[in-house]
């Protein structure tokens, strides 16, 4: 099977290589004013309407054509299109700087030539967002958040108030791989999900693959969210900042050596704890509660063909209750990357990546200090190649090796009265190699096929326990340092196809298999920074998913409206659940508490988007089902997964009154999470014990919420006297600012965070259901500036 696929790949590729002599146009495309690489710029050939290319994540493109004279158009949404006439008689390097539209004073609107990108692009099940897209979407505390906005797209669902993460196509939150400049981010939220770790001013581009990921990605079942940080302006110094009610941020960027190297530093800190001081309760007013994060990046052009990037993220949440309780957690990532243009057709990207997530809880009880900590640390080497073989084939291949070290939990005390508890660290190596080809079979049909091979190896040292299906210890075996405990080999084929029916409609389809070797342990429906990651091991098999999807894309009214619908089905095996009452924290025998089962998810997604005009926005609706099957749960019958949301609806709209004033609103509605309620009760030793019959047989109340935002920009231009002519001249004001007012949960819907059953305080012996809602209405105001 595997050999067949590889053979097929090379056959298909070889099939196309016997064409006549061709030359290559290649180069990089950047923003004229900042020097930032532009991702996804369209390169079109006027004489050959069906040919074209787009730039990769590093702004590089390559296209091979027959000897001739061509008019080449470089176009990108929001930028002025550039046309170059090229007499192609040898391999040619053309580096382009595109000017943003807004830079021009003329009122001529340049429309990007490929407004139908969503129709003709060969990617399937991908959601893309740029920072511009999220600028006006209202959010909690007025803090623009790309991760929150992406959750308004079909097939992507927020985990709910006070919960980190999101669900993609029925998958759980830990099935999303979140990459920041290639580094995995293990906990992508601050303050239990109120903010994401991504500071929007430091972010350039986000792509979310909803399960039909290309072969270069792997390691999670549901999705890959690939976040790329800004590189920094290499032309001039710039500052960008925002002051909000509970947080402020500042970004500084500029050239180190003009046109050659640049840096960007972006920091953000909340000061919610200042509000705590207002509270007339000593315990609360002496508490701390904040987070900060810092994004830094620098890059340097060593030569025309070589560029080196250094990027890092440091974020931390800190909370404390007087001197009795301290809790902090956060991610650190670092990436060293070397881009190398080996030749006109081969682009190489080599990176060494570090990623760390840890938490520390410190508790002081009767002057005895003790602490609990946990850590996951990765060293990651990636080698990726883009090979633009010919007009019809572009190949990606590479390898990726990650060394994971897990310290699931340590309990230490500063006294001999308490023994420490140390959960044995786990070591594993995740290695993958992949190859994929984007292959234009004929004008209207493009296939993208590939294969990813992964090996996951757990190695020593360690005292490894073997558990049977019932959770009984079979035996324990000692492994030496670097001795292999267990090793899994997995092959993941991926294929997707785009059939272009006409200029404004296309049909896309995909099949993808994925594996997941890391599993997040959380036996609660609310997330916590203490949820620990567990690698696949001798007891935990890698999870697998197989997904098929079919989509129809249609643009209406001159590409001003986009419509798409996608239907998907996926089946998952070896997914994890827990024995009743499983303790996932500080439990050396936690693997005996895990259960192995299957999952299935299916649904249909709709998106209708209006891109142009005074009013823009989108409506998204998903009808879906997500279920799980475990021998030990629910008497072995299928039950709804917690994140099973039958209906999921979002409306996002922005109305631009003038260039300076815009009003925006979002409304979300989704079926409440599946939840388990008791059916009966009995008493034991004077305590009331609830009796449960079916897992997730009930629903939380439906969730809905309206958010409103109003953005007022200051005047973009100012008039100055031209000293020579004495005339007033309109120039762009270098200082730009805007006010943002927002209302989160505008009609104060009390959405349930939890429902629990308690004794009625006024009526002992009676039990009542109590719902906790986190937010009513949350108004906020923020001021943003750049100069």
């Amino acid at each position: 099977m595997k050999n067949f696929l590889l053979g097929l790949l090379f056959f298909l590729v070889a099939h196309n290589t016997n064409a006549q002599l061709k030359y290559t146009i290649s180069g990089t495309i950047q923003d004229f004013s900042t020097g930032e690489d532009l991702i996804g710029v369209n390169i079109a050939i006027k004489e050959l309407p069906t040919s074209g290319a787009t730039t990769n994540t590093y702004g590089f493109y390559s296209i091979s054509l027959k000897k001739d004279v061509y008019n080449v158009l470089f176009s990108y949404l929001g930028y002025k299109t550039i046309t170059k006439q090229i007499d192609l008689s040898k391999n040619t390097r053309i580096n382009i700087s595109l000017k943003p539209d807004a830079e021009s004073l003329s009122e001529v609107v340049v429309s990007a030539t490929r407004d139908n990108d969503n129709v003709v692009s060969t990617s399937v099940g991908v959601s893309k967002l740029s920072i511009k897209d999220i600028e006006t979407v209202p959010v909690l505390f007025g803090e623009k958040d790309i991760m929150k906005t992406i959750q308004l797209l079909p097939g992507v669902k927020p985990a709910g108030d006070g919960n980190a993460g999101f669900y993609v196509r029925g998958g759980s939150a830990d099935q999303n791989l979140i990459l920041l400049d290639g580094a995995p981010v293990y906990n992508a939220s601050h303050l239990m999900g109120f903010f994401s770790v991504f500071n929007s001013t430091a972010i350039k581009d986000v792509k979310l693959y909803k399960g039909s990921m290309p072969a270069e990605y792997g390691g999670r079942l549901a999705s890959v969210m690939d976040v790329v940080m800004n590189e920094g302006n290499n032309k001039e110094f710039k500052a960008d900042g925002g002051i909000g009610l509970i947080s402020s941020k500042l970004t500084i960027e500029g050239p180190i050596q003009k046109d050659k190297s640049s840096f960007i530093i972006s920091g953000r800190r909340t000061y919610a704890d200042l509000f705590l001081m207002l509270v007339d309760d000593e315990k609360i007013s002496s508490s701390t509660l904040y987070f900060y994060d810092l994004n830094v990046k620098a890059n340097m052009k060593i030569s025309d063909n070589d560029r080196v990037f250094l990027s890092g993220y440091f974020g931390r949440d800190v909370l404390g209750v007087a001197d009795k309780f301290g809790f902090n957690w956060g991610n650190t990532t670092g990436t060293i990357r070397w881009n190398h243009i080996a030749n006109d057709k081969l682009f190489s990207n080599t990176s060494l990546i570090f990623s760390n997530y840890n938490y520390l809880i410190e508790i002081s009880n009767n002057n005895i200090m003790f602490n609990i900590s946990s850590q996951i640390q990765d060293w990651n080497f990636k080698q990726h190649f883009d090979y633009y073989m010919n007009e019809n084939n572009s190949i990606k291949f590479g390898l990726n090796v990650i060394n994971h070290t897990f310290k699931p939990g340590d309990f230490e005390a500063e006294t001999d009265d308490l023994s420490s508890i140390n959960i044995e660290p786990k070591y594993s190596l995740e290695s993958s190699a992949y190859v994929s080809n984007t292959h234009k079979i004929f004008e209207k049909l493009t296939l993208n096929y590939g294969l990813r091979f992964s090996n996951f190896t757990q190695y020593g040292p360690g005292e490894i326990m073997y558990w049977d299906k019932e959770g009984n210890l079979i035996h324990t075996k000692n492994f030496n340092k670097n001795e292999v405990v267990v090793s899994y080999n997995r092959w993941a084929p991926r294929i997707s196809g785009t059939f272009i029916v006409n200029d404004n409609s296309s049909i896309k389809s995909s099949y993808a298999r994925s594996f997941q070797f890391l599993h997040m342990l959380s036996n609660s429906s609310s997330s916590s920074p203490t949820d620990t990651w567990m690698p696949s091991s001798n007891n935990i098999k890698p999870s697998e998913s197989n997904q098929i999807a079919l989509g129809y894309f249609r643009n209406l009214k001159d590409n001003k409206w986009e419509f798409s619908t996608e239907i998907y089905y996926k089946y998952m095996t070896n997914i994890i659940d827990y024995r009743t009452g499983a303790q996932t924290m500080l439990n050396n025998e936690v693997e005996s508490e895990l259960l192995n089962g299957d999952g299935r998810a299916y649904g249909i997604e709709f998106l209708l988007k209006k891109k142009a005009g005074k009013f823009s926005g989108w409506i998204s609706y998903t009808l879906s089902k997500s279920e799980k099957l475990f021998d030990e749960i629910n008497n072995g019958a299928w039950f709804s997964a917690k994140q099973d949301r039958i209906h999921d609806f979002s409306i996002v709209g922005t109305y631009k009154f003038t260039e300076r004033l815009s009003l925006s609103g979002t409304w979300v509605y989704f079926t409440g999470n599946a939840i388990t309620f008791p059916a009966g009760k009995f008493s034991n030793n004077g305590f009331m014990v609830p009796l449960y019959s079916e897992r997730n047989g009930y629903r939380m109340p439906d969730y809905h919420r309206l958010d409103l935002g109003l953005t007022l920009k200051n005047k973009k231009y100012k008039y100055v006297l031209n000293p020579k002519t004495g005339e007033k001249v309109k120039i762009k004001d270098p200082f730009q600012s805007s006010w943002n007012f927002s209302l989160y949960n505008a009609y104060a819907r009390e959405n349930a965070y939890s429902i629990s059953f308690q004794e009625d305080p006024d009526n002992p012996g009676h039990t009542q259901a109590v719902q906790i809602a986190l937010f009513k209405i949350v108004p906020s105001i923020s001021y943003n500036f750049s100069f």
Partner: protein
Amino acid sequence: MKKSILYIIVFIATLTSCEKVINVELKDSEKKIVIDGFISDSIGYNYIKLTNSSNFFDLSKEEFVTGATAFVTNKSGKKFDLKELEPGIYTNPKLISEPNNKYSININYKNNVITANSETQSSIKIDSFFIKQGRVKPGGNIDSKIKAYTFECYWEDKKDEENFYHVIVKVNNRINNRIFVTDDRALDGKTIPFKSSGISMMENDKVSIEVLSVDKIYFDFYHLLFTLQIDPNATPGNADTNIKGTDAIGLFNACTISAKKFVFKNSMVIKGEKDK
């Protein structure tokens, strides 16, 4: 810990978070026979109670199961027959548990045989016990005669044994609903501290604090209840039980107890040290 996080989450919800009682319709529960078995080394605190389970919101009194026969045997095979002294309550005054023994119950009800085993652990003794002035709860009435106190209690754990404890506080024979269970993983052979704040008492209230030395299945059973109490989003489910029999649920517990019983006087409160 989860509770602290929840507390802070709820707090940072800009003080707009709110709790409200909602109406939840629950399906009916299948009626099952419930065994509430308890054997201890404390005289008069040994019984097997048989009832039927009820619907969750049911307000009617417990439905007792009468007319069963029951007996208990220990590790050495000694048998104690139980008599139905009150409807649904089966007991034998001679039945007193010994540490490190194993007890089995055997119940026959309408030819349905129900059994369960439980092991007693080493017994412990409360070494010291203190009452401190507690904090007045936010919103609480300072002038009220009912004040909140903090209990502190210490005992020695037996070394090189896996021990589990359940502490039960009763005021005027009413059980404090909060569940306090602990194992000795971090405290093997050391002093185990117990601390509970917010216990409301008045002068002359009859108070008892009981430390039950229990087995693992009992601990797991109550630990799940404890988890559900502190984390409203914890995944619920029926805990494993030691009861074996068709349509039979509940828990049988053979344990040893160390108790402090007293009539509360304000003079017992350790002054000058206000607990936070």
